[in-house]
């Protein structure tokens, strides 16, 4: 069952008991689906799902971000963040490529939590150790920290009954400390689905209790990484390692709004240089004209030549057509631009759509 020495989450036996299909993701053996991707996707869009996201990495950092180096490591203006808020941004290398996408939580004036991708956790730690001052007291708490994502239009009402009415006061990308399984834990109003939702951090020893408590409510169902992927792709949220990586920068990925150009950060010079030179290609999202789905690495063609490559592709359960993201020559990046996605004999006509592809998400409502 586990020939690749994959890491497992504390919920692995629970996933097996529920009959989940398990597969490797980012060095972990993770549940891909339980009942089925389309059913879990639809349940998240209309009700409330719980996702085991224990594989993601977490770090704690102390101190003032300008003095401890954190402000230089992250692209966002973290100094301006209020305690109790979190912010999405990037760690860049010296070439301006993306080392990882990160959510920074300002716990107090002088305490931070960084949440990173599973496969990049070790590399992120090396980068942080290199650039943060010793006073930052970097701690990797990934092993002892579990996380469950509770996502869907019903999530607020359900979590209110479990953790109190204060849940309702959280703004989008705000968080608070709540009594969860006998601990004082972070619940943030964040997620990767486009729906109203929360991420709950809990110690690894308590996550089975929290999981069981959530599933006692019959309106909450487990969902796997398969549905998480179709949900995020409909929202055009990039997946690290697929849509963005160390060879791509925020400028070509259309993610400059998460970069504060009024401050100094690692990779800024290269980013500005590329920006001034003109960005030859852009990350776009597109919808196919049929149910046929493009896949990672299909090539993109227009005017009789190759103009790009697909980075993510899937069938969209909400739109019932193929959808995807990919990098294309700038000339074809405008909404309404048409091209053909190809692999061998397969040809899928598609049209660029302004993001998100799915426009009825409840995340910010």
């Amino acid at each position, binding site marked *: 069952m586990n020939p690749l020495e994959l890491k497992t989450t504390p919920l692995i036996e629970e996933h097996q008991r529920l009959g989940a*299909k398990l597969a490797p993701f980012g060095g972990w053996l993770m549940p891909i689906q339980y009942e089925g*991707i*389309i*059913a879990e996707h639809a349940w998240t869009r209309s009700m409330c799902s719980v996702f085991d996201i224990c594989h993601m990495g977490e770090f704690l950092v102390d101190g003032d971000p300008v003095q401890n180096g954190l402000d230089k490591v992250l692209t966002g203006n973290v100094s301006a963040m209020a305690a109790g808020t979190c912010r999405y941004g990037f760690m860049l290398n010296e070439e301006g490529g993306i080392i990882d996408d990160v959510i920074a939580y300002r716990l107090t004036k002088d305490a931070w939590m960084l949440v990173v991708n599973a496969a990049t956790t070790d590399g992120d730690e090396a980068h942080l150790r290199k650039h943060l001052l010793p006073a930052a007291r970097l701690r990797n708490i990934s092993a002892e920290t579990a996380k469950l994502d509770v996502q869907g239009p019903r999530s607020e009402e359900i979590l209110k009954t479990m953790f109190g009415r204060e849940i309702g006061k959280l703004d989008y990308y705000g968080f608070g400390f709540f009594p969860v399984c006998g601990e004082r834990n972070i619940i943030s109003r964040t997620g990767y689905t486009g729906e109203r939702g929360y991420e709950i951090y809990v110690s690894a020893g308590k996550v089975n209790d929290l999981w069981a408590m959530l599933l006692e409510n019959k309106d909450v169902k487990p969902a796997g990484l398969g549905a998480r992927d*179709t949900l995020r792709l409909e929202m055009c949220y990039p997946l690290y390692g697929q849509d963005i990586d160390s060879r791509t920068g925020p400028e070509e990925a259309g993610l400059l709004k998460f970069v504060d150009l009024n401050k100094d950060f690692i990779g800024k010079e290269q980013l500005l240089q590329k920006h001034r030179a003109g960005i030859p290609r852009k990350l776009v999202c597109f919808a196919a004209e049929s149910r046929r*789905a493009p896949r990672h690495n299909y090539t993109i063609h227009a005017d009789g030549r190759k103009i790009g490559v697909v980075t993510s592709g*899937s*069938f969209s*359960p909400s739109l019932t057509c*193929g959808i995807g993201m990919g990098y294309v020559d700038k000339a074809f990046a405008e909404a309404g631009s048409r091209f053909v996605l190809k692999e061998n004999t397969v040809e899928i006509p598609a049209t660029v759509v302004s993001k998100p592809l799915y426009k009825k998400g409840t995340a910010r409502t």
Partner: protein
Amino acid sequence: MNVPANLFYTKEHEWAKIDGKTATVGITDHAQHALGDITFVECPPAGKAVKQFDRYSTVESVKAASDVYAPVSGKVIKVNEELKTKPELVNQSPYERGFFACIEMSDPAEKAKLMDSQAYAAYVKELEK
């Protein structure tokens, strides 16, 4: 897992229901279960010649596209048009409403190269070990 007794099977998890010279074909319950939600089926048009064990169709699930191989050689005489709008029939009814096509067999002796239901059930059991 459902393995109807009256059908013949391939190692690639296709089935054929042979009635005189006509074979109705599709993918097995084991295949649909392994693929998950089927979202798209591409079948060759009626009239197209297919060859035993050669690719003749593509089936897509949410996660991936997979080749489908012909259990018998011959000419496609009918395709299941309903799958164009309801590919989920392959999940719901792999041996009935979710059939892919009907093939007029060019060589009925090819049946000997297929597994019967007992052999296929044993084959799948071995794969799942």
